[in-house]
């Protein structure tokens, strides 16, 4: 059966990044034309090797802050996947102003370029981080109040607000996905990435932030992309719609540590928890999101969170 996405001209910001590069591969397989627009700050050309030979693929090195360049290159596409984001959003760094406002300006520029080029479909990765500390778990898409505790979450919620407004005012149809933690061989940050890095430099003692009771939902990159495509192909909403996307279960940090030590064969490593509930200011210790809405659309992740974690650790290790 031909899916709605087939044959669409897709424009992917941040398309050379972890999620964007898998997305590009998948969309080409689905018969789409793909343009990747990426400044290669965190993205990598080699992650697009599989795409590079495809005649339907084009790569443009460009920055989202460069509006003229963005609009010129976006024109003529059908669907925008806005995955370019400043991943370095920890406040307290040298010049947070640049990081933070650039992130907002980037989303704003994407929306304006769409408006000015009459592009009417947008897919955007938001995050469970918009929920902040969830007082009444699990949080579904209608949960409120939305009081994010991290700059990352605040930037995502801000972007959601702008997307909602542009959708209403300028006839754009938007899919906003609030992701759980996405895992895969190309991940560039996150707890598994960090712990494996630490173990490589010292396998006698493993320092783990907070007290190990943190608990979130983890899922694999291919499921993340399949879920988004399912929502694109099957949701009939008009305007703006939000979908929680992740696995149905959660995994504790202490369990992640156990799996990592087991998979790396480190039986003698001493685990040292730094203590406290949060790993860093802005950490959300527990994120329970309801994925019932995606289920009612006919999609759910096949891997449980624990299995996704083990899979991701194996993939990362076999790649390294």
């Amino acid at each position, binding site marked *: 059966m031909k899916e709605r996405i087939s044959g669409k001209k897709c424009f992917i910001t941040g398309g050379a990044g972890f999620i964007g590069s898998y997305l590009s591969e998948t969309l080409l397989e689905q018969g789409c034309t793909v343009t990747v627009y990426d400044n290669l700050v965190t993205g990598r050309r080699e992650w697009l090797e599989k795409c590079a030979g495809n005649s339907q693929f084009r790569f443009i090195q460009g920055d989202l802050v460069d509006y003229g360049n963005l609009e010129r290159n976006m024109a003529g596409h059908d669907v925008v996947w806005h995955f370019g984001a400043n991943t370095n959003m920890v406040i307290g760094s040298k010049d947070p102003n640049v990081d933070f406002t650039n992130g907002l300006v980037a989303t704003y520029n994407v929306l304006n370029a769409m408006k000015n080029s009459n592009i009417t479909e947008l897919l955007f990765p938001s995050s469970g981080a918009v929920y902040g500390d969830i007082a009444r778990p699990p949080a579904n898409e209608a949960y409120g109040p939305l009081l994010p505790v991290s700059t990352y979450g605040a930037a995502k919620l*801000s972007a959601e*607000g702008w997307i909602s407004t542009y959708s209403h*005012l300028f006839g754009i149809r938007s899919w906003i996905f609030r992701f759980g933690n996405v895992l895969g061989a190309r991940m560039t940050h996150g707890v598994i990435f960090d712990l494996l890095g630490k173990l490589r430099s010292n396998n006698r003692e493993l320092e783990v932030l907070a007290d190990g009771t943190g608990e979130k939902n983890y899922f694999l990159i291919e499921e993340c992309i399949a879920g988004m495509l399912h929502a694109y192909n099957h949701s009939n909403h008009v305007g703006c719609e939000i979908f929680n996307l992740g696995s149905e279960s959660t995994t504790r940090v202490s369990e992640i540590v156990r799996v990592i030590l087991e998979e790396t064969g480190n039986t003698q490593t001493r685990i040292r928890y730094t203590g406290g509930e949060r790993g860093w200011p802005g950490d959300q210790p527990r994120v329970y999101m309801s994925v019932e809405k995606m289920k009612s659309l006919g999609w759910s992740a096949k891997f449980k969170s624990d299995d996704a974690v083990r899979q991701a650790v194996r993939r990362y290790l076999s790649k390294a």
Partner: protein
Amino acid sequence: MKALITGGAGFIGSNLVRRLLTNPDNQVTVFDNLSSGKESNLPRSDQLSLIKADTLDLGSLREAIRGHDIVFHLSTNPDTARGLRETDLDLKQGTIATYNVLESMRVNDVRRIVFPSGSGVYGEVGDRIVAEDYGPLFPISMYGATKLAAEAMISCFCHAFDMRGYILRLGNVVGDGLTHGVIFDFVRKLKATKEVLTVLGDGNQTKPYIHVQDAIDAMFLVTERARDHVNLFNVATDDWPTVSWIAQTVIAEMDLKHTKVQYTGGDRGWKGDVPIIKLDTSRIRKLGWKNQYSSREAIRNAIRLTIKGNRA
């Protein structure tokens, strides 16, 4: 208390300044670019100083905020229609400016921020009465988007840096010194021509209004009594007059007998206008706040002041 008020020379700001100055222990700094605020709105007082600068100028803001106990962040783009033509106006004056305020507070260890948000964050929710925990939030105006973005940033700064945020989602604030909005527009139009009053939309738009003094009461009350890192409250009255009621009241208050009201039609005044807003205010009422003025009383009061020419 040493308070800094961004947008302090504007409508709400200048009323807030007056209230703060009634306490001789308060020192007030107004930080305003005077783009819509006016120096003449401000009273003369030894307790008051004015810094003419823009919130987009992070350097000046950082300098100005040092040494204050609390920031009332009231500056914003007041002109929603212009925000539709110049789409980066709200992004800059709302979102980026709020980021600058928070960052300036962080580096100077200033821990308390009061922020007037608005019902615009709720977007179009129809006839239901919305409480603070309503979701999803789908704003439909630049104004609503920028208020939501500002709320999000205040929330994360308060959590990450042990600050306290007081976010008030206000109804339409009216009172002495109005510079824009439906009352201001109707009075201005009728002073120019008495025969016809053109009303945007079908006149059935329904919103809660709030008297500026009631809004200021709420700001003071929450800073005294609310205890969370981020304290979020709807603040409004419980009656929701229609735009056509406001039109008729303005006409009556101006003693005009033969004015014809002409509606442009459609359910809303402009793109991004939310035709019906009803706010559940039980949360702030539980904290002890009550409004002195109903919507209708606040509107009538504001109409009279606007006709007189405000503080004239």
